[in-house]
């Protein structure tokens, strides 16, 4: 090949590569523009305050009500329930893998957790219907087990791999010298873990939890299939709930194009976007703090 052709190919591909980088910016920009534009259209019809503080979501009623609180509360309830289960289990497992497991056990556990992460959410939701729901109905004496508790347990299963992997990395990254110093003072393994290693790994563990929260808030299929989808203000874990993601999934298929209801779903999506963004950014903040702290 001629030298000039080679040079122009070089320049051409530099531009192509840079172009794809800009495409990513365009993608995020496009998503933001879509959310903002449609939410804005929604707020032309409905007052933002009514949307944010409304206690009732009934967009198909004779006098439609677009209050997002039942949906946000549902999402929050299911997410907190999931974290209540996933945080102790996740940190316990991460600590076991990082501190106690032999290399052989570790080599079995890590792929197992990756496998759990690979199970599609629709399969987890299906198991919620066929296994967990009858179980909960029996135990709690309900007509069916499609409620917030069901969704919370399933979301915990889905968030666990994220939490375990990141928390384990954080625990693993704590300098060995900390541990040795603690042992030298006569501390037991457990005391070292609780008083030295976990506090030192805390920012990383908090990051793990926040990323797990982000995953749980944004999860659609599992909650759509397992929580019953009644749009009421939930009062307990045994109430059926309709999360923000499930609302979008159910109602987007039915609404006419560019009606108030259609725009309302984009407004819900905007709130959802902001919630996951906040969780992920907090997670990232703590990861960076952890990295800075342990950069030797």
């Amino acid at each position, binding site marked *: 090949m001629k030298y000039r052709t080679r040079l122009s*190919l*070089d320049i051409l591909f*530099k531009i192509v*590569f840079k*172009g*794809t*980088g*800009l495409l*990513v*910016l365009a*993608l*995020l920009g*496009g*998503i933001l523009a*879509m959310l903002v534009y*449609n939410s804005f259209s929604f707020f032309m019809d409905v007052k933002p305050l009514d949307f944010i503080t409304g206690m009732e979501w009934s967009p198909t009623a004779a006098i439609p009500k677009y209050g997002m609180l039942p949906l946000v509360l549902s999402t929050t309830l299911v997410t907190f329930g999931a974290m209540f289960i996933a945080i*102790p*289990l996740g940190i*316990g*497992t991460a600590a*076991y*893998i990082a*501190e106690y497991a032999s290399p052989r056990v570790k080599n079995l556990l890590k*792929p*197992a957790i990756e*496998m*759990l992460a*690979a*199970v*599609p*959410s*629709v*399969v*987890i*939701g*299906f*198991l919620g*219907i*066929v*296994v967990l729901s009858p179980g909960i109905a029996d135990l709690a004496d309900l007509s069916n087990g499609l409620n917030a508790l069901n969704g919370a347990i399933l979301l915990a*299963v889905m968030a*666990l791999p994220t939490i375990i992997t990141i928390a384990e990395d954080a625990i693993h990254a704590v300098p060995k010298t900390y541990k040795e110093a603690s042992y030298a003072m006569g501390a*037991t393994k*457990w005391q070292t873990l609780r008083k030295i290693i976990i506090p030192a790994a805390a920012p990383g563990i908090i990051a793990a939890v926040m990323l797990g929260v982000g995953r749980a808030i*944004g*999860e*659609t*299929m599992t909650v759509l299939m397992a929580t019953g989808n009644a749009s009421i203000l939930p009062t307990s874990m045994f109430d059926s709930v309709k999360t923000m*993601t499930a609302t*979008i*999934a159910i109602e987007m298929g039915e609404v006419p*194009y560019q009606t108030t209801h259609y725009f309302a779903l*984009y407004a819900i*999506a905007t709130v*959802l*976007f902001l919630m*996951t*963004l906040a*969780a*992920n950014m907090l997670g990232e903040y703590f990861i960076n703090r952890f990295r800075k702290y342990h950069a030797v």
Partner: protein
Amino acid sequence: MLFKSSKISAVVEWGTLLISTVLVCFFLVVVIWEIVSKGAGQLSWDFITKVPSAGMTKGGILTPIIGTVMLTILTALFAIPFGVCCAIYLNEYAEDNWLTRTIRASIRNLSGVPSIIYGLFGLALFVQALQLGTSLLAAGLTLGLLSLPYIITTTEEALMRIPNSTREAALAVGATKFETIKDAVLPSAMPGILTGVVLTLSRAAGETAPILFTGAAFYINNSNGYLNQEFMALPYHLYMLSTQHQSIEEVRPIAYGTALILIIVVFFMNLTAFYIRFKYRKSATEM
């Protein structure tokens, strides 16, 4: 005395952590056992080669299998070239300036965006604005966008592991920067890139939320997989059979069979990725 009690408590403490680990593994075992034990009876040659019939209460799941395969191929065609090129830009060309930092921040944010929002974006952009309609193409493009940030991240990690000496050697014998990347950097990074690509595609194959509004259909009567038509897909088929079908109990065995096939596909792709990673590690240590 003191020594003895501390020994007991050490066992108890170890036990607590062990129990949480065992519980997590138990979840995985329940998932696999339930699907395999109840789905295995469904598996037969007919199940994967016949189209659904009699209102989906009989027949196989050929149509959703073809839909998912086509969808995954489309996702790959779209996401791999763009993802790999973007990773090359970030790792090989980009200077540390505000533009690069913004692109990196965007990628991190995009990978956290819920998949249902990608579904909405696909609906607004591909189905409505670009007039593709609810179709295989629109859904494939939507899943391609969803996969983009993961492919960029994993490819960049693979590129980062290539030592600078590889680049310097190529540049020293007179290769241009592009030739260095094409002939020296990419070939050595290939196993790492492939691992990331296969893992990402296995995720995309199992996704349901992004295809809800962009083209997945409850039932279509042909298994052609045309780009401009609606399609059936395995995850969506499972969702429909378990929640929307008019005789849910009757189709439950087919739902189990679909779940099993879906899990087999996804796990097979994951194992392929593990295998590539394992082989690559081995050959890297031999060097």
